[in-house]
């Protein structure tokens, strides 16, 4: 489903190279965990997948369902089913959350040639999805993410993911800033979306999240490259020995 080939990417503004020859393949139905120390390029990878303009791909390719997505803007990628759950979801004053959800869902439906949702159908979906995440509907009347706690913002991200039904989910440090109860709710939300047709890339600094979202594969990112891949036991090994051993091995 996702094939990253020898990817090089840099910050557009100052030319700093962050991703330096990254290779990664994630199959349909697979949950791949990306782990790595601070500054290894984890968040940059998530932004490059989503198509953020602040980064430039200088070499290599990203294939999604066998086709390069490098020329697509973020909206086009999203319409094709790529979803990024942000590490720090943005607060957007003046845009009501409900209005935003409706516009986003219908924009993707339109891009796929589907009819817009009727209001009752839309409300039914939002109610069901927010209930699963123990979210209060009153919260959704507020401007997008404005005044939400860290946990509420992450839940709002998972809510969007549920409603938009993407095929490739990229979760950027979804565990950061969450207490254990919020983490469980968010992890349950993610697990409920696991399906044979859907791939997930779970980016995390700590192994803790992977106790709740058990990955099929684990990849260690260091200095913009995947330096080691393995199964879920690799995460446990990292938890025990830290990154130093693996980094030493690779060097």
């Amino acid at each position, binding site marked *: 489903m996702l094939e990253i080939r020898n990817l090089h990417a840099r910050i557009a503004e100052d030319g700093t190279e962050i991703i330096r020859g990254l290779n990664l393949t994630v199959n349909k139905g697979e949950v791949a965990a990306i782990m790595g120390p601070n500054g290894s390029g984890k968040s940059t990878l998530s932004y490059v997948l*989503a*198509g*953020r*303009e*602040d980064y430039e791909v200088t070499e290599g390719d990203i294939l999604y369902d066998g086709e390069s997505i490098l020329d697509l*803007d*973020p*909206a086009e*990628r*999203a*319409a094709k089913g790529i*979803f*990024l759950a*942000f590490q720090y*979801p*943005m607060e*957007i*004053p*003046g*845009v009501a959350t409900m209005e*935003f959800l409706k*516009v*986003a869902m219908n*924009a*993707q439906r339109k*891009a796929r040639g589907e009819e817009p949702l009727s209001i009752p159908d839309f409300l039914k979906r939002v109610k069901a999805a927010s209930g699963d995440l123990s979210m209060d509907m009153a919260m959704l009347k507020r*401007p997008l993410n404005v005044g939400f706690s860290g946990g509420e913002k992450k839940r709002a991200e998972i809510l*969007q993911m549920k409603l*938009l039904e993407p095929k490739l989910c990229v979760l950027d440090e979804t565990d950061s800033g969450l207490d254990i109860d919020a983490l469980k709710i968010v992890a349950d939300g993610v697990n409920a979306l696991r399906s044979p047709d859907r791939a997930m890339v779970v980016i995390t600094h700590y192994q803790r999240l992977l106790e709740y979202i058990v990955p099929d594969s684990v990849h260690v990112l260091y200095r913009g490259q995947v330096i080691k891949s393995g199964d879920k036991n690799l995460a446990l090994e990292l938890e025990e020995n830290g990154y130093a051993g693996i980094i030493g091995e690779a060097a």
Partner: protein
Amino acid sequence: MNIHAVPQLTPAETALVDAFGERLSLLPGDGAVMVKRDDAIEQVKTGLPTKRVESWHYTDLRRLLTSVPAFDETAKAEAVAPVLEGSAVFSVLNGRSSEKTAKVEGVTVTRVADKLTDGSFAPALEPRGSDDAVGALNTAFVADGYFLDIAEGVELSQPIELQNVQAGGQTHVRLPVRVGNGAKAVIVERQTGTGDAFVSSVANVTVGDGAELTWLIVQEQPDAAATHLGQFNAWIGKDAKLVVFVMNAGGKLVRQEINVAAKGEGSTFTLRGINLLAGDTHTDVTMVLDHAVPHTESTEVIRNVVTGKARGVFQGRINVHQYAQKTDAKMACNTLLLSDDGEFSTKPELEIFADDVQCGHGATVTEIDRNHLFYLMARGIEEKTARGLLVKAFVAEVIEELEDEAIVDALEGRLDKWFAEHG
């Protein structure tokens, strides 16, 4: 009046002076009113204000007002549906009030054409100063409007809309309102029309002790050639609340003045404004606020969206008089500049003669936040739509502060209309 060498009149000034000569015999007014009219046209004859006049520095009226249409008695202006559903509507059509008006319990309605001749109105026509061009032009030509007297303690169960609808030519109206002590009202001042008109409109409003008034100015003149000169003057009593919202969404040349005097202790004044600017237009909102007594509060927030070759101005002057201790005043003007050819000038002024006060102001000019844009696009919202959402959000925030759901929905409806026409 200042003695200056009389300048050579511009075509617009000449048209105004000529129009006065032609209209004079048709204008209603007792002796004292007619004296005020004569004084006012003399002021016009000394020349409209230029950028050398401080309060007109960013709106050089003499240069910007290139032509003035003649009165058109035959122009057919039609009443429009009110902004707020269920409003009692009082329409001034092509400068004329109607004999048959809505009935609102607790409100006495008088036609200004009648007030002008009953011996009471002349003091209200006194200009605010030698730079009061809007007041002078209006005093010279004002023919009609409505005077609303809201009785003490009356809480209006429905909003009132005062609508001034032009269909070309000239219209000059007054919309005075007295809100009795302890009364509560929501009033929409609607300024709209279909022609290349020259419009002046003055509203003198007194807000009695303990009264609450929300006054919404919705100005949507056509962009092509309409000139709109508005003036809102208010005096706020003890423990009274005045909320003024102004939305400029049209007009070729617009000046909206807001002059407020906080005369009673414990009074609060809130100004929220939105300027939606497009095309080759010039829009000016100028506020002067006097905190004249202790313990008064005010906040002013103006948001501007500038597109095309539009130019905008906000001047906000807060005077805190010597005895007005414990004044709390905050003013902000934020502009979203969406075009390289557009411009916006902001002039905040604080003049403080008391020593125990809190006053602040801030002004920003920004573009669309790229992080916000990325977030929306990452959810599949295409760029144009995402930009539209963010621009609307920037101004909608100010509307949402009005809290009343019916008002918020109605004003957002006006926003949507503007964005649909200018998106």
